[in-house]
């Protein structure tokens, strides 16, 4: 595929910039619903996204006809009023090829009968329980290969694969209902050894919530799990670090000056797309820029932001490798990759201990970020006199970003990153981008829960 792109010699056209990205995506999807085999899908799609920048504007075209890329490129050049005659311009190609999938250990390489067999382990746990209603058990493999070239001579290809198992169900007894789910994302076959323990433990815990009482809305101390910390980090500060919101607004650039104190000094937030073991692995972005470790907040101080080439140029800052599209029909936007709060020094017990009355938020269904951020809570417990006690029904938590970042007064000593296979991040009509997020347990001294 890379050779096909190199043969186009796109650097020889007179446009200011040309990028071509080919994406090959394979999905395997096996579903059981209400104890019945519900669906099986195998799909491989291949498509190309072609970009031409000329006369101050971008022109894009998406196609599934890989053999027609050159003619599609010519149509775009004509639309952009650029000649389709090649020049003598030369460029030195800088080629990177990363093949992460040459091992047989990847779970997606299992034959479909084996995958169905592993799913039956999870099915036995949820389908045989008398309290479970509407069990939905799903296996998904998501495999992606990208091939890219631009007219500056950047050429790359890389691939990645993730597998996920989801069980989703309601527990029902008398008039009480508790809706919940567990997502288990992994890459290697060895992770399947933990299936039984993981899903059994989860169901046992879920039953604690069936008759749990709803909380009274309040502002109180909370401890967030790594999962909740990740969603909080992504929704609260991560989106505000995407520099495209500063376009055309010099006041904002002054207000978001690097070096400004924006959080308690124990808080550091990092975005980095170079870890192939998490779903937010984007080693080179869709403009050909390599990933790097970007501190967004370092010890409470605003330390950086996420850029595309356009926003970096506008703010006179360095590119960060954060221009991503969700697929071959979309143009890149400034997006997060793998975003997390860095580890601190406290153990989980030390975080809980000083709280007389508060909550431990263990799992979150979804979150959103705006001037305030919100998280919809699935499982939470009371903290009373420094100990975790009863499970509670909690609906939504909300907060203003900077106030909450200053209110973080404890950070755990171990970071956990949560990958995504079934969903991801949405922005400007592009959903889902399979970013990852996480962090350690964190304590927030004052937080709105309802």
């Amino acid at each position, binding site marked *: 595929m890379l050779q096909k792109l190199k043969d186009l010699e796109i650097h020889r056209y007179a446009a200011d910039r040309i990028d071509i990205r080919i994406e090959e995506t394979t*999905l395997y*999807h096996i579903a059981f619903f*209400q104890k*019945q*085999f*519900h*669906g*099986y*899908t*195998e*799909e*491989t*799609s*291949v*498509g190309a996204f072609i970009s031409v920048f000329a006369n101050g*504007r*971008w*022109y*894009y*075209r*998406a*196609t*599934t*006809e890989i053999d027609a890329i050159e003619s599609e490129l010519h149509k775009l050049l004509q639309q952009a009023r650029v000649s389709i005659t090649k020049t003598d311009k030369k460029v030195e190609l800088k080629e990177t090829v990363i093949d992460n999938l040459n091992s047989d250990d990847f779970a997606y390489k299992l034959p*479909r009968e084996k995958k169905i067999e592993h799913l039956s382990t999870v099915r036995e746990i949820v389908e045989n329980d008398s309290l479970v*209603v*509407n069990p939905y058990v799903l296996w998904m493999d998501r495999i992606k290969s990208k091939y890219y070239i631009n007219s500056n001579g950047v050429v790359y290809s890389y691939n990645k694969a993730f597998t996920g198992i989801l069980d989703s169900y*309601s527990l029902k007894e008398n008039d009480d*209902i*508790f809706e919940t789910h567990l997502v288990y994302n992994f890459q290697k076959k060895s992770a399947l050894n933990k299936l039984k323990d993981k899903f059994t433990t989860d169901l046992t815990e879920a039953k604690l919530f069936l008759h749990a009482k*709803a909380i009274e*809305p309040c502002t109180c101390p909370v401890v967030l799990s790594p999962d909740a910390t990740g969603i909080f980090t992504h929704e609260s500060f991560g*989106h*505000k670090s*995407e520099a495209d*919101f500063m*376009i*055309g*607004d010099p*006041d*904002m650039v002054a*207000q*978001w000056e690097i070096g400004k104190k924006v959080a308690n000094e124990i808080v550091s937030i990092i975005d980095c797309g170079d870890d192939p073991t998490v779903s937010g692995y984007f080693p080179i972005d869709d403009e050909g820029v390599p990933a790097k470790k970007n501190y967004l907040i370092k010890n409470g101080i605003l330390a950086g932001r996420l850029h595309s080439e356009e926003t970096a140029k506008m703010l006179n800052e360095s590119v960060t490798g954060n221009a991503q599209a969700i697929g071959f029909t979309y*143009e890149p936007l400034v997006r997060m990759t793998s975003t997390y709060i860095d580890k601190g020094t406290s153990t989980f017990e030390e975080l809980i201990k000083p709280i007389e009355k508060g909550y431990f938020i263990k799992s979150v*269904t979804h979150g*959103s970020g*705006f*001037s*305030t951020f*919100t*998280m*919809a809570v699935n499982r939470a417990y009371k903290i009373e006199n420094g100990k975790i006690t009863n499970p509670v*029904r909690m*609906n*939504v938590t*909300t*907060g*203003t970003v900077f106030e909450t970042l200053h209110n973080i007064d404890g950070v755990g000593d171990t970071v956990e990153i949560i990958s995504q296979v079934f969903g991801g991040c949405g922005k400007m009509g592009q959903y889902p981008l399979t970013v990852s997020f996480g962090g350690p347990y964190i304590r927030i001294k004052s937080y*709105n829960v*309802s």
Partner: protein
Amino acid sequence: MIKEYFSNQTIEEKIKIENNQIQSFRSKNIIQKSVRVFDEKNKIFALGCATGNVPDSDLEAKATELLSLKLPFDYELEKDLKADFTMDKLSVNDLESFTEKVLHDLKDYQSNYVISGASGITEEITHIKNSQDLDLRCAGKSIYIYTNLKQKGSSNIMDIGTGLYGFDITDRKYQSYLKDTEFMAKAYLSENVNLENKTYKILCPPNMLLDKFSNDINGIEYEEKSSLLAGKQFEQIFNEKVNIVECRITHENGCLYMPFDGEGIVGVYDKPIVENGVLKTILYNKKNAKKYGKKSTGNGFRNYNGNAYIGCSFLKFIGDFAKCSDVINGEYVILPIMAEGGDFLPNGNYSQPIQLAFVFQNGKFIGKAPQMSINGNYLDGFNKDLIAFCQNDMWENIFGSVMMIYNGAVSLI
């Protein structure tokens, strides 16, 4: 063996607006296809699918191979019906000129705001046919523009958004969009009104409270009694002022044109769901209708790469209502503008964070509300807390044609 061929083609021209001007043009023409093979004798089926113009014979071969997985089915497929539901009323051909006109008409706001957004013309073509002489085709062309205004100095991606969606754009609709934008742009710059933690009148599109309701009328949830409304079909569940239809053609909340479902059932455009407060219809697809001894309501929605699930399209409130401008008199009325991230508990309780709301007193706009969440129970929202429905004569392009006023408990953030 019955063979079913399904395709969905999207042809789109899109213009992206950034920093008050056109930033890019994007074209796409993507077809997604599937073939399902049904073995009637053994009651099993399988699916082959692809993105791109892959020959049907390849997909058929894949589906036939996957029959070995013995995926069960137990219902009749549609037959003997041919129809073409093409709709093209669009008079705008030059998207670039249209977008330039919009940006020109909004240029006065550039002193306080940075404008971004997008415009597009989209044609969706859906085709389903099978070897039992079913052949249905639907093509709908629509246009949209959405404009996000970010106040200069604000750390949000956008502060207010307005938009225009339609199968065509009339001058009346366009003027209404400009009026909505003018109101929003001015109102956003106003001061906050002091509010307390207590119950206020909330003016909002009724769909804000319906996320859980659309799940509660899903046939599976209803029959398995995990729905809050289980056992209540044909009973009074809402105030008698409430009349809801499931709508298959609308330009409220984006454009929707869906004359038939993913299983080839030609639908009723306005299907009664609630009549005078009585729950009339529970939604089924073919598989679940058969399982529960019911008839499919034409709600077997599907994507090209999957099987039918029970879907619910736009729920529209109908009736003869007074104008909103005539019924928001009196004490404080809160109009939520941005409401992201809310959720419901299984008992119908909800908590809806409100990032931006406007406040009216005696029918006049008086300022912005502080950030808050509105809490309550959706069943109460259409019963004891309901004050009135009203015909939206003020911001139709933003909130749709019908609004409701109800008593909601406000907690300030």
